[in-house]
């Protein structure tokens, strides 16, 4: 076991799957000789060859379409978006061709769409987006968004082995900032299962991806005030782990929903509805949402800082909710 970054953990998982399963291959822009804009596939082409690490023209709908076509022949393609923001350029192909394929005509599409999402790195409106909701709202594709190196490795492997299309969102803020000991052998983390990131009794924060770490920092501050926060890291956004959501609400009776994605139509709404359905009588206070603003992701650091949910927002809301 070695200290491994979030980025390296994804690389490891992908590499191991390519080593053990010759039907896995990578396809995307600048992933070969260059190793990808974020170097997730650095060195892959030297080891696996350019047949299995395919540099494509700049054509996201073709990348997804080709991955889908190849998957119909029994391959397991892993397609990279250079930035997840560009997924909009393949939207129709994903939502209408790929996601509906099994329902409509029974053809499974065992492919993974992966790439860097999220803000906090001053990437501006087109290099910082969180596109999860478009796909959480699309039946037929699963959505995964790990927060830790261990989960990142285990989930990329599960995503590759899944018989359904999986959107794998890598948070670029975490790539080289988050490190932990990661088992350097084969293991998987199941899709569809949330994880208690921190136990607590006073209130629950349900969150995912980079915001797990924001929640953690807030929890540490709050602990000093005697407020013990439970953090539920969803890990998979579709299908949601309704059981885990309900369990933590039933335990603490107060809940903050925290995400980096913009507010209106964000995942917090869906979770609020689920809690209403499953644990309405267990609520001792209103469900609180902490999210980014309803704007594009602004570029300038003071603007982006204002835009994103902050540790102090979580602390403030937790105190307020505690006192409710």
């Amino acid at each position: 076991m070695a200290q491994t970054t979030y980025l390296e953990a994804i690389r490891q998982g992908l590499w191991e799957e390519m080593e053990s399963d010759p039907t896995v291959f990578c396809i995307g822009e600048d992933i070969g000789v260059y190793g990808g804009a974020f170097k997730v596939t650095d060195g892959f082409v030297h080891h696996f060859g350019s047949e299995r690490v395919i540099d494509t023209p700049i054509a996201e709908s073709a990348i997804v379409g080709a991955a889908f076509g190849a998957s119909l022949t029994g391959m397991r393609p892993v397609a990279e978006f250079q930035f997840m923001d560009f997924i909009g350029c393949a939207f129709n192909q994903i939502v209408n061709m790929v996601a509906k394929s099994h329902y409509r005509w029974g053809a499974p599409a065992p492919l993974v769409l992966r790439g860097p999402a999220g803000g906090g790195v001053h990437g501006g409106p087109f290099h910082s987006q969180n596109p999860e909701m478009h796909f959480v709202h699309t039946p037929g594709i699963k959505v995964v968004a790990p927060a830790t190196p261990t989960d990142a490795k285990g989930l990329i492997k599960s995503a590759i082995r899944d018989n359904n299309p999986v959107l794998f969102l890598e948070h670029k803020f975490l790539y080289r900032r988050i490190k932990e000991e990661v088992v350097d052998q084969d293991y998987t983390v199941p899709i569809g299962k949330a994880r208690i990131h921190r136990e607590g009794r006073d209130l629950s924060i349900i969150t995912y991806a980079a915001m797990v770490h924001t929640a953690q920092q807030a929890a540490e501050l709050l602990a000093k005030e005697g407020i013990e926060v439970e953090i539920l890291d969803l890990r998979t956004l579709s299908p949601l782990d309704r059981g885990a959501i309900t369990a933590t609400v039933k335990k603490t009776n107060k809940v903050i929903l925290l995400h980096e994605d913009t507010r209106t139509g964000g995942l917090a709404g869906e979770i609020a509805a689920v809690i209403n359905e499953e644990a309405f009588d267990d609520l001792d206070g209103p469900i609180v949402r902490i999210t980014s603003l309803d704007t594009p992701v602004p570029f300038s650091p003071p603007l982006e800082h204002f835009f994103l949910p902050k540790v102090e927002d979580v602390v403030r809301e937790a105190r307020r909710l505690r006192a409710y």
Partner: protein
Amino acid sequence: MATKRKASKVSGNGSKRSTNGAAAPRGSAIRVNEYGIPDWRLEHPEFEVFEVSSGPEVHYEIKGKLNTPVPPIRESKYLRREQHLELYRWMVMNRRMEQALENLYKQSKVVGGVYFGLGQEACSCASAFALGPDDWFAPMIRNQGAQLVRGFHARDIMMQYMAKSGSPTRGKDGTSHYGDIEKRHMVSPISMLGDLLPVMAGVSLGARLQGKELACLTWIGDGGQSTGVSYEGINFAAVRKLGLVLIVESNLWAYSTPTEYQVAVKDLANRAIGYGMPGVIIDGTDACQVYDATYEAVQRAHRGEGPTLIEAKLMRMKGHAIHDAASYVPKEMHEFWRKRDCIDRFQKYLLDKKWLTPAQDEKLIAKVDQEIEAEREFADSSPMPEGPTAAEGVYCDANCHRIKPKYGLPKKAQRSEGKLRQTEAAIHFK
């Protein structure tokens, strides 16, 4: 700023084009257009549809030569004699099945509308007929004949339209929106035009990784090809030399819009030039031309030499779908093309050659009708699906499919030994 050449004849194959009689001798001269694209047609109709904006209503008119004689069939280089008859039978079956669909519609037994390939049967059937047994295809709405040729039954298509439980999609989708990756290797289209092109390139890529060079045939309309994704797919196939065989059905209309308002180019085959792949123009109402051009493209694909763009010139002889009377089409246009009906011409060709006698022909048609009637009977009496099945099948759970490479495990799975090393290279946003 570009300069054009005059269209010219390439005398490579020697003999001159025949203008009388039903058949042109094998190897008739092939003309090339002003950009060097071979044009196999034996006539080169010249007319243009344009908008007329005087008078109370804006409408379309046509100008050009519309009373030229019907050209002969270009003798096939590849079809064997008995294959002609088989192909003819498929074309008849295609048409008769669509007539049956029309009847079902009139009896209110169809859910939604019906799409027809009237006049385009050669383009659907002869192309599919040119595929090898392992090859893949993905039809568009007008290519119902191709589905028959590749082993689906009329009942499958009928049940799709009737939304029956026994339809290939169990009522989940209609029309040609179904497929089969197990046996018949048909990829289901979606409504959004063009998205299939990269998908078919991807099928070829997937097979190549398994050591197999496939031909992957699909069609696109002169309208549908305007979608950006079409050219993403064509370009990707060209760069990777994938086995895409693309037939652009230049049937002069896209719903109510004349091709003149879709594209500013006369021959869509010219687009092949810009993508670095071969293009060819054929008469889409000549079954032999369709077969031969597809056949050559399929062989190219099997040799791993990359994609081919075949532009088939023809005419959509009905409205967009059954609700559409196509009153926007200038009458002379229908008349011109009715004389070029692909089945009539092929039938005459076979009769003239004496490969088919009138009696045999009658029998063939009667048998097809009988078959269609049995299929209709089956489809009609089959049940509708149960409501709750609507909730099933969104995801493929662990055991619903055994996913394995169709053509064997990829061999050269890695090019070197060595382990994963950490990367510390500079990245875009930190």
